[in-house]
């Protein structure tokens, strides 16, 4: 067998099983290799992003009480499962179908028709895979904020609709050739597209649901409701940090891009700075370094750098991370004590607030076009327009969807169910059958 014929290689024995034409049967070329590198990179990144799902699941589970752990797990499994199907059927078409007036895509439902207008070199499936895991990320953010009290069925319906419509519309605006893309908004890997969308939807959900029983005393003071497994929550954060390399670096959708190294460094160092920022702030403010804030801080740094990971330099990434780390703790306190919106895991602050913050910071710190680098205020302005537009759309759409669900079937479990826990009442089981659970 000659070296040259690598495309008819593989394992001869397995060849029977490979039913389709290989890449370029006429032989390897620099072009076909470059396409392969891009495809391999994009897929591996997609796998990493998919792995963020258990990251979210663990953070959310760890930050809430043991009696609701199986329920939150179930929500996380199902938003990814249902989301994968619905994004395949509807979401992708809205996001990347042929553009209508810069507002929405409207071709390719069920992956039918052509996606030639995307100008992809590799098969559309590679791109679909990558976009599916992004869509699922947006959906999964919501579950944390509405945890411990939302009905399972109601949650599922919202989850399907955010993946089918609410998120893809924003995605179309910014990544699908829509009006914000035309304005030149920079949201490289989705601080706004993915995280703020999830965060603002979470805000609406948590607001409409109201706080958990016992969260506020009669005199309105917020109580601490400690999470049941900080070890697992931390594992979740590490998994997210790991998966985020796929999220940000993979957003080049190209392994031949020379930017991937810088993006990785920026991503990592912003997360690091976020953890440091939150830890120091909580240490000073509460006399002890707070573990859950530090964990939130790392995520805040990651969310913050997502928009600008390919536009800023590492110093910029450190600044974004540090500030996001502080911002997230301030924001959690603000929601808790001032707005009285009960978000058990800090999802609104981490994803909504820090997503918007990170997107805005690109306007200041982008090496190419940022205000601090002499690029003037125009990029900053564009960013702010984008942030505001997405905020308005998501809040309005979520109000309609959550509101309709509330009207039709109710959002919240009964008081008794909430006290007894969603695990036993919604799923007939306990997550930790063998352990004594403290009351």
């Amino acid at each position: 067998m000659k070296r040259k014929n690598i495309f008819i290689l593989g394992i001869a024995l397995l060849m029977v099983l490979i039913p389709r034409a290989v890449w370029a049967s006429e032989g390897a070329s620099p072009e076909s290799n470059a396409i392969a590198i891009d495809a391999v990179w994009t897929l591996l990144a997609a796998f990493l992003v998919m792995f963020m799902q258990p990251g979210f699941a663990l953070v959310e589970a760890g930050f809430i009480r043991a009696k609701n752990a199986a329920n939150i797990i179930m929500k996380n499994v199902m938003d990814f499962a249902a989301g994968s199907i619905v994004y395949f059927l509807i979401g992708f078409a809205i996001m990347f179908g042929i553009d209508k007036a810069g507002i929405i895509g409207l071709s390719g439902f069920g992956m039918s028709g052509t996606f030639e207008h995307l100008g992809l070199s590799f098969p559309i499936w590679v791109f679909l895979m990558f976009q599916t895991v992004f869509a699922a990320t947006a959906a999964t953010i919501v579950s944390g904020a509405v945890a411990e009290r939302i009905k399972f069925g109601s949650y599922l319906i919202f989850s399907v609709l955010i993946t089918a419509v609410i998120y893809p519309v924003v995605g179309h605006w910014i990544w699908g050739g829509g009006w914000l893309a035309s304005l030149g908004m920079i949201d490289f890997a989705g601080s706004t597209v993915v995280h703020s969308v999830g965060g603002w939807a979470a805000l609406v959900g948590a607001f409409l649901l109201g706080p958990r029983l016992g969260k506020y005393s009669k005199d309105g003071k917020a109580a601490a409701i400690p999470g049941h497994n900080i070890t697992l929550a931390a594992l979740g954060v590490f998994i997210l940090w790991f998966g985020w390399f796929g999220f940000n670096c993979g957003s080049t959708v190209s392994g031949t891009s020379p930017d991937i190294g810088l993006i990785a460094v920026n991503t990592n160092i912003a997360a690091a700075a976020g953890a440091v920022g939150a830890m120091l702030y909580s240490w000073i403010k509460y006399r002890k370094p707070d573990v859950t804030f530090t964990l939130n801080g790392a995520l805040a740094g990651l969310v913050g750098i997502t928009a600008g990971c390919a536009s800023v330099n590492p110093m910029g990434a450190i600044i974004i991370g540090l500030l996001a780390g502080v911002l997230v703790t301030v924001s959690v306190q603000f929601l808790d004590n001032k707005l009285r919106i009960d978000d058990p895991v800090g999802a609104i602050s981490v994803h909504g607030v820090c997503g918007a913050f990170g997107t805005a910071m690109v306007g200041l710190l982008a090496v190419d076009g940022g205000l601090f680098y002499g690029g003037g205020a125009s990029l900053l302005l564009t960013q702010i327009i984008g942030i505001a537009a997405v905020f308005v759309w998501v809040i309005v759409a979520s109000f309609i969807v959550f509101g309709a669900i509330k009207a039709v079937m109710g959002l919240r479990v009964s008081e008794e169910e909430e006290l007894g826990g969603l695990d036993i009442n919604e799923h007939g089981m306990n997550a930790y059958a063998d352990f004594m659970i403290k009351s």
Partner: protein
Amino acid sequence: MKKIEAVIRPGRFEELKVALKTQGVTGMTTYNVMGRGKQQEVKQYYRGQELQVDLFPKLKIEIGCPDEQVEKIVQLILEICKTGQIGDGKIFIYPLEEVIRISSGEKNLDAL
């Protein structure tokens, strides 16, 4: 002296604790138990298999106190922990012969 043992709904404990404190009762020992009185079994399914749940999570509170405080404490418990539904719990009262505070060696009423 008596020992009051109350088995209550876990969700009621915080309020009870605060109320007891306002009455000057801080000494107490608590732990989780599983129990049942006349409360009905509940049928659950786990992996499709029927599961009779006939023990429910409760919180037990033990309070050692002088005889004359018993009534007040019992009243407080009834007030706060009563929803009127089966499953509210029960109070048991036992004779308590001697109490010793370990840190000082004080005994009985001085030790409470």
